[in-house]
């Protein structure tokens, strides 16, 4: 990874009529970086990707690729490659013709484009399928053709639009690794749109969380996990999702009182007066099931889910808490549990704005 900026978005806006799809988006992507854009449906992540490809024109702001302003440049002159969710393979062309389509457009000599196709086929494991038509391929093979069609171009950037969402779970995990290792081998710059935070966490160097056309937070995957800057990011990153409870600062300003449940320690370095109400975010994996009496959260087990390696304990109550427990718990429904959490693992958010409080 170098320090050279490959993609730069400065105050980018996009309107569809009255709908404001992107709001003052600022984003810098370095050469060789793997960036994931995540967020719920309709958050603007696909619009952002399509704007990079040139399939949408931005309403305001500046969009640069490799230092050049690309606002009004048509897609074919941007030198970016895109992998679509539906793969968008040309159904009337064989695999080899799909791969060499871009080279034929550039009027590359046949020998050259065929050699390139062979090379790409070797990288993606398509050697034996070159003469097939897309309809004769399985989902995973089609996915590879779509990747190959992008790789053959040696573009300035790869744009992925939820490329794995049509694959089954096992293949998805496999392709995740494959795409990432391909990215590293090619030294490419990649922008990857997904609604699956696990994909983003495992593949990306840099995650951009979007919501309603705004970038909520961006940073390294663990940075987002450790210090979500808003309640939304806290809930979006991490699985199972973060528990949120209303908490009141106690008189001693050392604990937070959670109605009907008990108390958790107040993290240090936060300027909060006694009696103030905040939203506390408690990750399921940070809640510990403790023995005996003492401070903590007291609840009754509602039900338990086993995944094999771990168990999820869900407690009863208006905010039912999810607890992630490594191994197999012996807890049964209706049993009382005491849950404790370390002060540094308690995330606090403003009740109204959802902004993170403290460090």
């Amino acid at each position, binding site marked *: 990874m170098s320090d050279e900026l490959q993609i730069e978005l400065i105050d980018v806006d996009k309107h569809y009529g009255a709908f404001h799809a992107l709001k003052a988006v600022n984003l810098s992507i370095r050469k060789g970086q793997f960036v994931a854009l995540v967020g719920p449906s309709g958050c603007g992540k696909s619009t952002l990707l399509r704007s990079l490809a040139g399939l949408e024109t931005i309403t305001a702001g500046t969009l640069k690729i490799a230092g050049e302003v690309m606002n009004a440049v048509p897609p074919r002159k941007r030198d970016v490659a895109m992998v679509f969710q539906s793969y968008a393979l040309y159904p009337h062309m064989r695999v080899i013709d799909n791969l060499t389509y871009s080279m034929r457009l550039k009027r590359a000599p046949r020998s050259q484009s065929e050699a390139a196709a062979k090379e790409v086929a070797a990288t993606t494991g398509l050697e034996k399928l070159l003469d097939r038509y897309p309809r004769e391929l399985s989902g995973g093979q089609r996915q590879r053709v779509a990747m190959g*069609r992008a790789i053959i171009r040696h573009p300035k950037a790869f744009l992925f639009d939820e490329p794995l969402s049509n694959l089954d779970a096992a293949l998805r995990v496999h392709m995740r690794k494959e795409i990432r290792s391909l990215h590293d081998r090619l030294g490419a710059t990649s922008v990857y749109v997904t609604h699956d935070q696990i994909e983003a966490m495992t593949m990306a160097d840099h995650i951009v969380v979007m919501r309603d056309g705004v970038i909520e937070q961006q940073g390294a995957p663990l940075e987002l996990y450790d210090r979500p800057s808003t309640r939304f990011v806290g809930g979006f990153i991490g699985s199972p999702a973060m528990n949120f409870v209303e908490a009141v600062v106690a008189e001693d300003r050392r604990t937070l009182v959670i109605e009907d449940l008990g108390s958790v320690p107040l993290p240090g370095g936060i300027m909060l007066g006694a009696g103030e109400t905040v939203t506390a975010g408690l990750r399921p994996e940070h809640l510990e099931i403790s023995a005996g009496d003492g401070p903590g959260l007291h609840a009754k087990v509602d039900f338990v889910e086993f995944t094999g390696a771990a168990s999820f304990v869900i407690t009863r109550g208006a905010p039912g808490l999810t607890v992630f427990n490594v191994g197999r718990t012996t807890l049964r429904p209706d049993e009382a549990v005491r849950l404790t959490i370390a002060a540094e693992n308690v995330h606090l958010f403003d009740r109204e704005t959802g902004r993170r409080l403290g460090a």
Partner: protein
Amino acid sequence: MTLEWRNRVLVVIALGLAALYLFPLYWMYVTSLKTGSDIFATPPDFLPRDAKWGNYGYVWTSRGMASYMWNSIVIASGTTALTALLGTGCAYVLARYRNGWIDVALFLVLMLQVLPASLMITPIFVGFSQVGLLDTPRLAVILALTAKTMPFFVVLVRATFMSVPAELEEAALVDGNSRIGAFFSIALPLARNGILVSAILIFMQAFGEYVYSKSIIQSPTLQPASVGLNSFMGPNTFEWNNIMAYAAIYVTPILAVFVLLQRRIVAGLTSGALK
């Protein structure tokens, strides 16, 4: 009644309706092979006693059918070519763009389909005579017919284009093609079947057209077979066998095309609808 019995009854009804509908066609072929006296026999023969194949050759030469058939082919081909050329682009735009103006255009296109030829012919005739198009009457008929067939073609081909995912063209754009290039290398080949089927339907329609040709083309040497057939029939006609032979020669080629291609035609007509 069981389901099986209901299906059987429905099949019988369907066959009965088909027989009723196809009987004139059958009667045309049978009559075309009869002698002059056989036609008026009571009770009528449902199969000709001895087939007079000579009726066909006689009609072909005595009525000068070569010229009539040629004119029909010229008019039908010209109409089909012009409709396909202009209509394909129009259908593509109507399929790909979505806004208020497109809705207005679609409404107008559908409106055009409602207007009957016999209503349109008077203004068309006056207009064409003003600009001197009546001097080239076959071209005039082609233009008038193209205007008439266009809505049907556009509606069908638009459905075909809508079944081609826009993402394919977007992929082509990103791959380095221009908007027009993507149309020709992606959208057009994928819509080919639908366009061909629609063009065949237009050809059939134009091949049998009567109203415009009858009104616009005065000279018998330029008239198509539909008009020729009409002039064959007078108030005192009794040559029904020869008239039927004429009709058989006229419709058999187009019927053969339909039978050969019916699978594709049916598939093409429904491909846009089922998605």
